[in-house]
């Protein structure tokens, strides 16, 4: 659709009737990078706090976060053991590190959902079942 001729560009010209290009959206696109840089540090602080990462609304989600954290720790320890010495090339060693990867991926996806997409995976379930223990909502620093 774009022409190949080089035309001068004017930032103030809008190219669509949609309101998304209001002055407030003409922000630095580096926001994503900055947020990425912030995220590991923020997560460290929260991890030391013992509770869930930013954004978990329901108890069930906090529990899943905590469980994944535990799994990662356990599996890393198991993998180190499974890969000691001669066993470094064994199937057990490979499988053990794959388990670490699986848990790390799951934890990262959950964090992405909560922090970037701002969606709690239990939203729909808790909408239908607000009385269950899993759907207890935390406010403030309650843990």
């Amino acid at each position, binding site marked *: 659709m774009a022409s190949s001729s080089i035309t001068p560009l004017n930032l103030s010209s809008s*190219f669509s009737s949609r309101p*998304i290009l209001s002055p407030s959206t003409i922000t630095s696109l580096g926001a994503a990078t900055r947020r990425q840089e912030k995220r590991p540090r923020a997560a460290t602080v929260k991890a030391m706090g013992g509770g869930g990462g930013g954004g978990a609304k329901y108890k069930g989600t906090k529990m899943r976060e905590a*469980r994944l954290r535990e799994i990662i720790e356990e599996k*890393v320890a198991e*993998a180190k053991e499974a890969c000691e010495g001669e066993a470094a090339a064994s199937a057990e060693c490979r499988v053990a*590190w794959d*388990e670490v990867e*699986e848990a790390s991926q799951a934890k990262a*996806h959950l964090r992405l959902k909560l922090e970037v997409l701002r969606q709690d995976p239990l939203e729909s*379930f808790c909408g239908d079942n607000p009385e269950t223990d899993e759907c207890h909502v935390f406010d403030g620093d309650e843990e």
Partner: protein
Amino acid sequence: MMTKRGGVIVQNHPSSPCVLICSATGGSGSDDTLVIGLAADSGCGKSTFMRRLTSVFGGGAGPPKGGNPDSNTLISDTTTVICLDDYHALDRTGRKEKGVTALDPRANDFDLMYEQVKALKEGKAVEKPIYNHITGHLDPPELIVPPKILVIEGLHPMFDPRVRDLLDFSIYLDISNDVKFAWKIQRDMAERGHSLESIKASIEARKPDFDAYIDPQKQYADAVIEVLLTQLIPDDNEGKVLRVKLIMKEGVKYFKPVYLFDEGSTISWVPCGRKLTCSYPGINFFYSPDTYFGHEVSVLEMDGQFDRLNELIYVESHLSNLSTKFYGEITQQMLKHSDFPGSNNGTGLFQTIIGLKIRDLLEQIVATKTGAPLEAAKA
């Protein structure tokens, strides 16, 4: 939302608890589900890529309502994204017993994968297993209703030739080892239990299976997004500034590769100069024809990052065959998801372009068949 499929009305509203299962109307109609394969080694919920893709068609994507909260499936008005981990033949315990990683084909049920993807393509609903990444078990199945667009994402979308044949378009996300390492550091260092050594060991241990079973799929992909470390900053290995290549297969039906200035030529372009001021390290583009595993391809490469909106608009205006519907559509899509990782570099740009290419594919297919109008509501 009701869609008419070969004369049979199917109710496939994602939030409706009552779903009428469409009777088999054969696989040759103009209402066939479009099937897209996406291969990558970052697990399911490549949420940002999927959201960019689904957002091109309008509407937000979310997990299936009212079902298993640990479901990996993502549903929007037009698109359903299935995680191929759901076709694990062996759960975590089973894999440990047999001594196979999830990367190993033996851990996956390709017969079931083929059967169900084929059924969905032909307009039949399926009861698909759910692999629970938290417990490591296979949970009771969930009902998947044939969508307009089905995306199968995971480690092996192109591994089995039967499944490969069902794909209308396939994408492979090829992350170089350096970038993989850098990203995993960013991802995992904050976790208790992880260290630089454990992250490195994990990558090394999975590499043999990855190289044997996953990597070879890229030769089959219609588009490969290759992510490498930048060449703009000497000795930079943090993976924050990226060099990204979009490798597009030539001769694929309904897929017109994007080009820069002059199709089929070789172009090296640095947009930053007199008209466009960029901040460090700037942006470099490269475009050329090439061969990739014996196929003719066109490669568009972007090294660097966008720092301001006007850089993005400027770049968009110089690319051709973008399949946009209006000037600035790419920029608008990128802005919509400016929170997502990659929105200031080639990964976000090329993922967005692929999304538009898929839309274009769908529209061309529909247009060349019986001329039945596209019935799904678009945002």
